[in-house]
Structures are given as structure tokens and as C-alpha cells.
């Protein structure tokens, strides 16, 4: 996957495919979707007729000149089609590389009688159940209905560490193409053949089911408006010119028209849209519609889960606080005893820290004949029953206090103070008891991801508010929120709290995004303007969201926002560039139109182009080649910089507005000089 990301923009086979597509897309039915380029196609057809007519007839200029105009216009069309085709090819290649992994793998399907039948993965229907054993490749997307397994998802995510997926919880989904490393699972197919999210995405990229996004529609209207203005300008020029006794050839009319209408943006518009989805796919996000990507650029609020997004996975033990009368070594040994058999990340981190801090030789503890007391929701504690009858427990402060007090022991004041201190610092206290007497407290802390507060800062500059969602108590939540630099937090969050928060923000007119994986997240995912479901999440969550993140990476939302903004900006800047180009084209063509009849108008020929024909040819050649020159920009997108809207507008106005004004003056002059050498 990582090699895929660094490939060059134009790969040989993609270019070949795109070239073929450029011709196929000349079909007027396809062309009609893009009004700007459609008018160019009409102009090209007229020029073909004129070129043929001028072979042997006089009055419309030489055959060679007309043919040249026709060819340049034809190439302009091909360039525009190529831009769209190459964007499609790239998107498809990306999607196909994901799809390939799952094609034609044998599936162990359970038939009605419960017997295993081996069939091809492409034959699996929605609702079928198949079995996967260790070493099997999972044939298609589905949900585990029985069992637990470790799975290697590196084919999809590029992450080599295996993940655990099990039936029931929020991590029950498996993806086709990933590999089962251990155990056996029974999986129910969630999509019929050709209906997976990936299939839908490929269809979107291929254009068959691609719908224009709202902003794309509005921009198309704007461009169609400009096209209409120029139709009026060119058509009325005919009687004007007749009045001034300056006959204008058809080639000159069509060249003027094609140069003036915004062909640059018109030719690149759909490529920009496809490239936006493609960029999302490169970030390993499958989008269900182009609109979702566009909306991402407008987001005002991001709801982020604390765990995994703001903090690294789970809490870690950071400090031991023995109570008065208990030595540090003694206390750490007790803590170690409570956690040796403990498989939870918290338990493991206690073992890790204790092993690190204890002097050499003091870690070997006698646990022969000991039994582990598992954590239950009722006792809210876990620990070890030693062979000598000692019972050592660790657990939440209030439950341990209850146990101790029930046994007639009191809560030592120094421990109570330590518990308070830990809580105000955003940590979680775990109180350790030995035979119901309190021995001290272990501090667990959330570790905030390095670099996360810089990312929040960047989001703030973009105008996006970040909200942390956590099950922690308000005190802890506040501490972590401040430390990580989020703007707001929801503490002790229940699933409906997310929903309510989203609704409240939306009522204020804001656009909200959230990420989720559980079935109980599904309503909120559906309510959010952009709902990103993790690929590991339940089918319900994936169905409810409008994007699926293959990496299961909660920070992905930040990237998605930038992709959305880039998409809009690329459209806006290229529109400005395209329209600003017209000024220079006017100065090339208008004097050329009238110079023969009104020599005084040579004063307008500020570029000193050598002849009317070369001026017109230079203008349309510039108009054509600017499209392929800008394809890389259209595909990569204009870089977004969070420097504030006004500063960004100024920057883009200078680069694309002023640049668009000046560049064609230079370009047309250079082309004219080159043409003059050949004429």
C-alpha cells in the first residue's frame, strides 16, 4: 500500500488507458454533461466543415490555417477528456488494488445442513455464512456471528500488527482480503456481490453513478453563464464587424469563442472532483458520495473519542503512592501481585512499571497455587488469592473503600489525599488492598498522543472546533481536554449524549463530523453531517456513516477536512485562473480580427504578435496546452494553508488571479515567436 501512495501521477498503463478513454469521451452524449466543453465540440465540428470547404474555396482563409485551427481545437477536447480519464484511471487503479486482494478466494460456506461447502468468493450472497480457520483469507466483507480471532489486516491498512475481532461487541466486522491468524470464526456476509462499499466507490469514480455535488452544480451554472455571455459577445460581433466593414472569418470567430469560454476549468472540473475522492481513497477512506468529501471541507465541529484519538490507546500506570507504614518496595510487590495474571492493558502497564522500578531481585514473587480474581462489573476490582490465603485486590476508589470499611478498616488520610491529587491531574486512581486493608494507590494516566495539540491548533485556525468525547468523570475530562488543547469535551458520555450534542450544534447551523464504530454510535453517525465509521466497526455503524476508514484511525477526520477544503479550493482557484486568462487572449485576438481593416487598431496589439493568423493560433494553442499543464495541479489539489480565510484569499488571488492575468501574455508571446519561425 505504501508503495502505491508514492507512485508518480502518470503511470504508463494508466496513461494508455486514459488516452483511449479521451477518444471514447468525445461522444456528444457524454460531452453534454459538461456544457463548456460541449460548446467547444460544436465549434470543432464547425471548423472541420470550414476546413473542408476552404479546400478549393476562397474567403475563409487558407486550408492549412483552417485545418490547424481545427486540429488545435480537437486536441483541446482531447486534453480535457484526458484530464478526466486520467483522474478516473488513478481512482480505479487505487480501488482495484484494494479489490484484487479479495477476488476469487475459496470460501468455506455453511450450507443449510451445516456442512462446509467450498465455493468461490464471488458466489457468496448476502446473508450466507462461512467459516474461516487460522491461515484462511477472508473471502468477503462480513460480520462475525460466532468466535474470536486475531486477524492480519495489513493488506487493507498497511498496519502489520494483528487485530482482534470477535462476535458481539463493536469490533465484529471483517474485511475481505484480510487473513485470519488464529482461531476459528463464523462470518455472515453483509453485502451481495458487487455491493460492498468498495464496489460503490469504484462505481462513483468510474462516473457511471457519479452525481455532481451541490458546489459543482453551482460552479457549472456560473461557467455556463460565462459561456453564454461569450456566445452573445461572439454572435453580436458579426453585425458589429459588418457595420465597421471588417469581415471576420469563421475560424477567427470560433477561435475567439473557444479562447474566451472558461475551457481550462471546464476541462478540469470533473477531474478535480474525481481526484478529491481519489485523495480520500489514498488516505484509506472510502467515501460513499462526492458530496461527503465536499461537506468535510465545511465542517465546523469535530467529535473525537478520547481513547485512541487524543490519547494513546489505554491508560498507563505512572506512579505508586504507598500509604504510611508501607514501604515502596512492599507496595510495588503487592501491586505486581494484583496484576501479574491481569491481561488488561492497565494491568500490563502496572507490571511493566513495577518491574522497571523494583530493585533487582525483588520481582520474583511466589505465586504458586495462587488464583486470579477476575474483574467484574459488580466488584469493580481484580486481584490474586494467594496460596497462603492472602487476598490482594486493586480497584476503583469507592468500591475498595466500601470493602475496607465493611471489614472495619479505615481509609488512611494520605491515601485519600493521593486519590484526590490523581483525579485532579486527570489520572485514574487504583486503590490496592491486602486482606481488606488499604495499602496505597496506583496512579494511571492517559498518555496524550505526541503532536496532537498542534493538529488541534491547525484545526482551530481552519475554524473547526474540536470536541472530546469520553466516559471519564468531568474532572479528568477537563484536565485531558486542557492538556490536549481541545475546545470542548463531553464527560461521562453516553451514546445519546453524542447525538444530543450533534443536534444542538446543528441547530446553530454548524456542520458536525464524528467517528464511531459501535452499533450504538449508528444513530449519531447518521445524524452527523460527516459520519466516519471505522472499518472494524459493526455493519450498522458502517451503514449509518457516509465514509468508512479502512485504517480505523480516529485522527483521520483531520485529514478528511483538509481533503474537502482542497477540493473546493482547487475548483475556485482554477476558475479564477481560467477567467483571468481571457484578458490576454482578448489582447491577442481582438486586434487580429480587425487589424486588416482598421490598421490604427495595431495600437491594441500590445504583445506585438507577428500576424493576425499567428496571433489567433498562439491564443488557441495556449488555451489548449494550459489544460495538460494544469492536470497535475488538478489531481494533487491546491495546497491548503490554515492562515485564515482573508489571508488565504489574498494568497490565492495573487497566485491564480494575478498569475492568470500575466501568464498568458508571456505564454502567447512565446508561442507566437515559435510559430513565426515555422510560418
Amino acid at each position: 500500500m505504501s508503495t502505491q501512495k508514492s507512485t508518480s501521477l502518470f503511470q504508463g498503463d494508466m496513461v494508455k488507458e486514459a488516452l483511449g478513454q479521451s477518444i471514447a469521451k468525445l461522444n456528444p452524449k457524454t460531452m453534454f454533461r459538461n456544457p463548456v466543453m460541449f460548446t467547444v465540440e460544436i465549434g470543432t465540428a464547425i471548423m472541420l466543415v470550414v476546413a473542408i470547404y476552404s479546400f478549393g474555396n476562397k474567403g475563409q482563409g487558407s486550408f492549412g490555417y483552417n485545418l490547424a485551427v481545427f486540429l488545435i481545437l480537437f486536441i483541446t477536447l482531447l486534453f480535457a477528456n484526458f484530464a478526466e480519464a486520467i483522474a478516473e484511471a488513478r481512482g480505479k487503479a487505487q480501488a482495484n488494488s484494494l479489490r484484487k486482494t479479495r477476488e476469487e478466494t475459496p470460501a468455506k460456506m455453511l450450507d443449510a445442513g451445516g456442512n462446509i461447502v467450498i465455493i468461490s468468493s464471488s458466489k457468496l450472497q448476502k446473508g450466507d455464512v462461512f467459516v474461516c480457520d487460522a491461515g484462511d483469507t477472508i473471502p468477503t466483507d462480513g460480520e462475525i456471528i460466532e468466535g474470536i480471532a486475531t486477524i492480519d489486516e495489513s493488506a487493507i491498512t498497511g498496519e502489520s500488527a494483528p487485530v482482534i475481532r470477535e462476535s458481539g461487541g463493536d469490533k465484529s466486522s471483517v474485511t475481505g482480503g484480510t487473513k485470519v491468524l488464529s482461531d476459528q470464526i463464523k462470518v455472515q456476509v453483509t453485502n451481495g456481490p458487487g455491493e460492498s462499499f468498495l464496489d460503490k466507490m469504484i462505481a462513483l469514480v468510474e462516473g457511471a453513478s457519479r452525481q455532481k455535488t451541490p458546489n459543482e452544480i453551482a460552479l457549472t451554472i456560473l461557467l455556463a453563464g460565462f459561456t453564454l455571455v461569450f456566445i452573445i459577445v461572439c454572435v453580436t460581433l458579426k453585425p458589429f464587424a459588418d457595420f465597421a466593414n471588417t469581415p471576420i472569418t469563421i475560424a477567427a470567430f470560433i477561435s475567439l469563442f473557444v479562447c474566451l469560454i472558461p475551457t481550462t476549468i471546464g476541462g478540469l472540473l470533473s477531474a478535480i472532483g474525481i481526484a478529491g475522492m481519489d485523495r480520500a481513497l489514498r488516505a484509506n477512506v472510502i467515501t460513499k458520495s462526492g458530496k461527503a468529501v465536499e461537506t468535510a471541507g465545511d465542517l465546523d465541529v469535530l467529535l473525537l473519542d478520547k481513547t485512541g484519538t487524543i490519547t494513546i490507546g489505554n491508560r498507563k500506570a505512572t506512579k505508586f503512592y504507598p500509604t504510611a507504614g508501607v514501604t515502596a518496595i512492599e507496595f510495588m510487590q503487592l501491586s505486581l501481585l494484583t496484576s501479574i495474571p491481569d491481561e488488561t492493558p492497565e494491568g500490563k502497564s502496572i507490571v511493566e512499571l513495577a518491574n522497571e522500578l523494583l530493585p533487582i531481585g525483588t520481582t520474583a514473587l511466589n505465586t504458586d497455587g495462587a488464583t486470579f480474581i477476575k474483574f467484574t462489573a459488580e466488584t469493580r476490582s481484580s486481584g490474586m488469592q494467594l496460596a497462603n490465603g492472602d487476598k490482594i485486590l486493586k480497584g476503583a476508589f469507592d468500591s475498595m473503600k466500601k470493602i475496607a470499611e465493611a471489614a472495619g478498616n479505615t481509609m488512611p488520610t494520605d491515601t485519600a489525599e493521593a486519590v484526590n491529587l490523581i483525579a485532579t491531574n486527570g489520572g485514574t486512581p487504583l486503590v490496592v488492598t491486602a486482606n481488606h486493608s488499604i495499602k496505597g494507590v496506583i496512579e494511571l494516566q492517559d498518555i496524550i498522543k505526541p503532536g496532537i495539540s498542534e493538529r488541534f491548533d491547525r484545526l482551530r485556525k481552519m475554524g473547526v472546533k474540536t470536541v472530546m468525547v469520553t466516559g471519564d468523570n468531568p474532572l479528568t475530562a477537563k484536565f485531558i481536554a486542557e492538556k490536549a488543547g481541545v475546545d470542548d469535551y463531553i464527560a461521562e458520555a453516553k451514546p445519546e449524549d453524542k447525538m444530543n450534542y450533534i443536534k444542538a450544534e446543528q441547530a446553530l447551523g454548524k456542520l458536525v463530523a464524528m467517528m464511531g464504530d459501535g452499533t450504538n454510535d449508528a444513530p449519531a453517525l447518521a445524524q452527523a453531517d460527516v459520519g466516519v465509521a471505522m472499518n472494524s466497526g459493526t455493519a450498522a455503524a458502517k451503514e449509518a456513516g457516509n465514509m468508512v476508514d479502512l485504517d480505523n484511525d480516529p485522527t483521520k477526520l483531520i485529514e478528511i477536512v483538509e481533503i474537502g477544503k482542497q477540493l473546493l479550493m482547487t475548483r475556485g482557484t482554477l476558475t479564477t485562473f481560467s477567467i483571468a486568462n481571457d484578458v490576454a487572449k482578448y489582447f491577442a485576438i481582438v486586434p487580429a480580427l480587425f487589424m486588416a481593416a482598421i490598421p490604427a487598431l495595431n495600437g491594441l496589439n500590445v504583445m506585438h504578435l507577428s500576424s493576425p493568423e499567428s496571433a489567433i493560433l498562439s491564443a488557441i494553442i495556449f488555451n489548449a496546452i494550459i489544460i495538460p499543464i494544469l492536470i497535475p495541479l488538478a489531481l494533487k489539489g491546491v495546497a491548503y494553508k490554515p492562515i485564515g480565510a482573508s489571508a488565504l484569499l489574498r494568497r490565492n488571488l495573487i497566485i491564480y488571479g494575478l498569475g492568470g492575468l500575466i501568464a498568458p501574455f508571456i505564454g502567447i508571446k512565446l508561442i507566437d515567436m515559435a510559430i513565426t519561425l515555422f510560418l
Partner: protein
Amino acid sequence: MNSQLLAVALTFLTTILLAIPFGKYIAKIYGGQKTLLDPIFTPIEKLIFRFSGINASKQMNWKQHLKAMLTINFLWFFLGMFLLMNQGWLPFNPDGNPSMSPDLAFNTAISFLINCNLQHYSGETGMSYFIQIFFVTFLQFVSAATGLALAAMIFKSLSPKKQEDKDAENENKIGYLRGLGNFYNYFLKSCTRILLPLSVVVAAILLFNGTPMNTEGKDQFTSLEGDTVNVSRGPAAAMIAIKHIGTNGGGYFGANSAHPLENPNFLTNTVEIIAQMIIPLAMIFALGYFINRKKLSWMIFSVMTIGFLLLTIPTILTEIGGNPAISRMGINQSAGAMEGKEVRFGTPASAYWSIATTVISTGSVNAMHDSTMPLSGMMQMLAMMTNAFYGGCGVGILNFYIYIIIAVFISGLMVGRTPEFMGKKVEAREVKIAMIVALFHPFLILVGTALASYGIMNIKDIAWLNNPGFHGFSEMLYEYTSSAANNGSGFEGLGDNTPWWNISTGIVLIMGRFIPIIGPLAIAGLLANKKEIPESAGTLKTDTSTFGLMIFAVIFLITALSFFPALTLGPIAEYFTLYK
């Protein structure tokens, strides 16, 4: 020359200094706040509302505003047609002027109805006093008030939503449209509180400087050569005041404000020029006071002023420079290009007026535009082609609003956010309307001129045009530009009282008025009903100089791209031929 230039600069400065407090006053009027003139006007207004059965406090949504506006305009049109075609037998006609022909009456009725005042007749011989008072002066008030009332609705649409509107929105009432004030209330108050007091002041100044105000018919005197000269008079001072205050521009006399009785001296010239600019300028500031965003007003004012100066300065310089063709004949040009100008005003003041009157849709003239240099002629046409630097009473803001929407859309995309203006998303529908309006202006001008050019080349026996060549083309282009921009000034040189000019410009006039009014009204109405989006760091602020630059670029590009070829064949070709 320097003192004349200084006078022009001071005139402009005075206009701005008067417009700021007057804008505050206008904002108070539309906001229903207390003003000094309340004791005089409140009873009169109450009486009028009671008499006409209008509940002035009833809130109207944008569609109701539009309906009310169109209805009263429709009535006035037929009233106007009737009066013009029957003035011969109606009272107050001491000079015995005849009734108008149907095509001339059509053109004239529309032209005054829509605040344009394109005149294909001469006041002295074409209109009775009755018509001058009850048709011309009446329409000059109400057509200006129509534009002002609609601008007030736009102001209202930009102000924050009221609680009842928010409630309706939360209840998801289908088809609920937000109330945006009362059209009749805005309309009447525009007449009584804004137009009337200013007109009284200006009319008084004109009276004291010799402009007639009577109903006595023509006067006679014997000139030094011994000829008997008939001098037309009539109720002129009152009409000339509102003609400028209401940015109407139709002359009482055929020679408009170049006529010695219509504009007797340099002082009245200064007063008339301030009078025509004060309301369009004040409206910009009124917007800022009304919605409490003064910075937005200053942004709009700056963009418009830069545009205005970019048109004015070259015009003044060109006119001061004189006519090279006359210089070549060895004639002293130290006073500038004086052909077609009045000696009592001089070149700078005439050049300044020519841009002021075209930028604002007044269209009155104090010198003959046909005689100005090619570059000045182009600047006058560009002023009307952009039609958004200050602009006419109320409608200037409406025109500018369209450019704001287009600029907001493009710049919104450029900063990576769905475009929004004053917290409202600008989407496909608004862009569509804005583009239609922006498109219509060049469409009317270019198609009109194209048809006329075609006609002249192919229908030889109609003497439409007096001048051949580039200048003749400029004359046609100017006529349609003036009509589409609802300006009403003429390059003249056309045989313009013919069915072709009367009917074709009449149609252009109607479309040039109502489409640019309905469009912004619809956009404002649509936006007013949208959800308000709170401002964030990613929101593009519209009251900054950067955004001002963006609007200016949009105005410049749309105008330049639409009209460059046409201007090339007219004034630009003439310029290069004259200055070769």
C-alpha cells in the same frame, strides 16, 4: 484650470461629507426610529395610509414586496400612456403642445416609470405643464422611491433574524417566508422623509438662481440682432430638483442641464451634481448603520469610489488635453476640448458631471457627450456598463449585490469553504439568479446594438444614424447601454424619435429595470430564509479590503470581457485613429 480642478475635488468631498450623516438619517427612517421631522410627517403619512387602507406595520415577505412593487408600477404605466397621448386637450398647456404618438408615448411612459428618463422628445415642444407636473415630476418621485424601498428590503434581509422567524424555522413550517418590512411603508417614507425634504432645499436654491417656476407659457425678448426669441418657461425648478435628487435625469428643457434656465451658473451646477450623488452615496452608509456593520459600508464605498475615480480621472485629463484634431488646425486648446460644453461650467466640471451622471443612473447632462473625446465617451459607457459604482437611487445597491454574490461564490471556493454571505450559504439557486442578471445587461446592450447595426446596413432607407463609422457605432452602443443601465442620457446623433428607437429602447428599458430588481430581491429573499451559520475562523469576512479587491476584480472582468470587442469597434478604434 487648477481652480476648476480644485472645485471638482471639493464638490466630490462635500458630497461624501453630506452623504455620511444623511445615510445615518436614512437608516433611522427605515428602522422606524425617531427623527426631527416626525411631527410634520407622521400625521401626513398616517392620513395617507388610512385613506388608502394600508396597514403599514404588516410584515411582507420578498414575494409580497415584489407583487406590490409590480402592481403599482403597472398602474402608473397605463396612467402615463393615457396622459401622454391626451396631453393636447388636457389643461395647463399654454404652448399648445400636441399629444404624443403611441410609440413615443410608450417609450416616454416606460422611460419615466423606470427612473431612466431617456427622452426622445424635447420638453419645450413635447410636453404640457400638466404632464411636466403630474406625469414627469410625479414619476420622478415614485420611481426613485420604488428603488429606495426595495433597497430597504435588502437591508432588512441582511439584518439578523427575529425570534418569530427562528421559531417558524425550528417548527419547520413549510413555505414560510420571512417578513422583511412593509413595502408601502418603505415606499411612502422614501417619498416624504428622503426625497421631499432634499428636493425642497434644491428647488429653493435653483429658484434663487433664476430657474423659472410658473405656468405662464413662453416669454419673448428681442435679441441684439433684432430677432424675436421665444423662451419656454414653466414649473421647472421643482422638477429639476427631483430630477437630480431621484437620479432621474430627464431634462425639463431639451438641452437638459446645459440649458441656461435649467442650470444657470457654476453654483447651481455644483448643487445639481451634489444632489444627484447624495442619495446613492448615502444609501451605502445607510446599509452599514441599518445592519450595524459600518465596515461593510466602507468596503462597498471604497470599491465604488475606486471604480468611480478610475473612470473620472482619465475623463477629466482627456478633456483638459483638448482635441488633437483641432490642435492640428492651429487652434488654442488651453481651455480643453470645449466643443459641446458650456463656457460657464468649463472642462473639468463638465467631465466630472459626465461620469457622475453615467455612474449614477441620472443621465442628465450639462454638456454634449457626443462631443467628448473618444476615451471619455468610453469611460461614460463603461460607467453604465458596470452600472454598480454608486448607481441609481436604491438600485445601485441592488446591482452591486449581484456582484457581491458572484464574488462571494468564487472567493468562497478559493478559501475551501462553501461560499456564504452574512452567514447564509450561497448555493446553486442564488448563483443561477445572479448569473442571469449579470448576463442580461450585456445581452440587452449587445443584442440591441447588433440589431440596430444590422438594420442600418441592410435597411438603407431608414435614416437612423447621422454619423457614419466608429462614432456612429458608439452612438448606437451608447443608446442601448444608456437604456439597459436605465441611465437615460444620450450620445445623441441618432434620429431617435422613430418607431425603431422608441420601441426597441422601450423594451430594453423595461427589461433593464425589472430583471436587475427582481433578481437581487429573489436572492435576498432566498438568503433571508436560510439558516444562519455562525462565523468561525474559516469564514471569509466580506468587509475586508481583500474581499473588496475580489469584488472589484469580478466587476472589472465581467464588464471588460462582455464589452471589449464592442468598445474596440467604437471609441477605441476612434481613439487610435484620432491620436495616431
